[in-house]
């Protein structure tokens, strides 16, 4: 069975995830509680003592994150080049499903078109527009029509 699951928008390894949560909770909680005890005894203003303890607790979270980041590498494959055609096609479909229409990018303002060209997305959107044109539809629809 794969240990990879998707939690909160990204892929994680279940064992690494449990260990990271244990680290976060295990380092931050005692740091905060001990810090609060210390500051309450040494700082006169109790509200201020609480704030100091909170700051210390936040710092402990950062330490925990740093350790976990050193121990567990990301489960992502990052490609520096332009997006793969496959992932782009999926993204285009997802945007369309969410209510975005693939109108002809030529209708956009000059500035918007320049931006798309610089990003190398102009031709991708032209293609998306052609694919979305009524009549060009999906294969199934065309068959039904003919």
């Amino acid at each position, binding site marked *: 069975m794969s240990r990879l699951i998707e939690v909160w928008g990204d892929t994680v390894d279940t064992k690494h995830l449990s260990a990271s949560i244990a680290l976060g909770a295990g380092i931050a*909680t005692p740091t905060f509680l001990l810090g609060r005890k210390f500051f309450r005894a040494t700082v006169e203003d109790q509200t201020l003592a609480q704030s100091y303890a909170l700051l210390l607790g936040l710092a402990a979270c950062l330490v925990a994150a740093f350790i976990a980041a050193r121990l*567990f590498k990301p489960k992502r494959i990052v490609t520096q080049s332009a997006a793969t055609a496959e992932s782009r096609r999926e993204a285009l479909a997802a945007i369309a499903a969410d209510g975005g229409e693939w109108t002809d990018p030529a209708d956009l303002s000059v500035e918007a078109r320049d931006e798309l060209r610089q990003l190398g997305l102009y031709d991708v959107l032209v293609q998306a527009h052609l694919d979305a044109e009524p009549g060009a539809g999906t294969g199934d629809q065309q068959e039904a029509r003919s």
Partner: protein
Amino acid sequence: MEPLLWAIGMGLIGAVVFAAIGLVSGTDETAVVAPITLLVVLLGVPAAGVFSFFLAAVISKHITHAIPTTLLGIPGDTMAAPMLADAQQLRELGVPHIALRKAISGGVLSAFIAVPLAVLFAWMLSPVADEIGQAAPWIFAGAAILIALTSKGRWAAVAAMFPFVLLIVGINSFVTAELGHALSISFFLGIATGPLIADLFLAMSPAGRKSLERSGPREFALAPDVRTWAGRMPNPLKVLDRKQVAYTSGAAVVSSATFVFSPVAMTVLMGEAVGARVKNGYHKLTTKMAVRNGTTESTYIAETLIPLVALGLPLSPMAAGPAAPLFNAPPVYTVNAETGATNNLHNLLSTWEFLAFGLVAVTIATLVAYPFAMTNAHRAASWVMRNVSHEAIIGAFAGLILVICLYEGGILAVLVTVTVGLVGGLLNRMFGMHSGVQFMGYYAAVLTVPAMIALG
């Protein structure tokens, strides 16, 4: 002269410190800005310095927290939650840095619009301040339903409001009875991290885990870095196209006037309103990024400034949360709940000082955080994606939730966050009732329900 020096000095400190804090994803405004501002007040900094510190802090944090939001897909804080879905789609298109730049340029533009407008609206509203206070519960209830209707969940989200509000009312009265004081940060945290908490519960059950399983690592493609401006200081008016500038400014004007709404809800509402007018998928997404982030900026500012200038009472979600120490930080600033007498920034600064120091703070925050985020976004994105595992972030979050809850109300607060998070996360996942709707639900629970009961 001296107040101005305080404003500049404290603004600079606030901007630098919070630009760094913003890079840590999930650092909720209420959870980090409020206690540190309280610290500044209690340390005895003069009013001008306190105000400028606060405003510079929220704005610069808001600029840098867009980095994790857009590049990692993890909300920089609760206000960033409504931008996640759009940011995710742009990330999958391979242009997360464009999502970031549109978002923060919209934010900067809105900030400069919101400060003078908020002061103006405050001045106009001062005569009817009392009536607004009385109508607030009903405005909240109406807005909650409206926002639920515009969400993906639609009728399911509207229907789910009722049990959700009842749940909050129940938990709220239970914790108030037990602790002697109400909790708020724990509820916010629960709503904000609900999807995470729900996923963790699902991962623990065999059936739920099946729905989360993945066969391999996720693939991300980072598009080439594109610099669309010349010189050192990027110009937000060049990063956004003309239409985006117009929509963002419009949303900033409208949202500056509506200071009793939840900022998250306003963000959702403005984004949807503008999104419906832009057809092309890519242009729609980038415009929504600018408008939404701009709206959170203008609501931050308006919701802080209007109650401060006009009322002196913390009568807005922002004033009741992150900005609370500007109103009430005994023994330095006080609000007498019975008589309504105040001794806080409202009394210590004049309208003109609010305007001037507000603009000083916005300028400082922009100079510190904006060029940094604009120029280093791509490098930061690439570095974070290769080096920072999602596990490490979730682990830090677990620690953060525990620390903040223990700070606010001990073990009971931890349980409140887990309960609200589990229910809220499942409502989000199963019924499309997103966190913006849930935030409005929270305010309806603490404001509208008591007002309804008072009606008999």
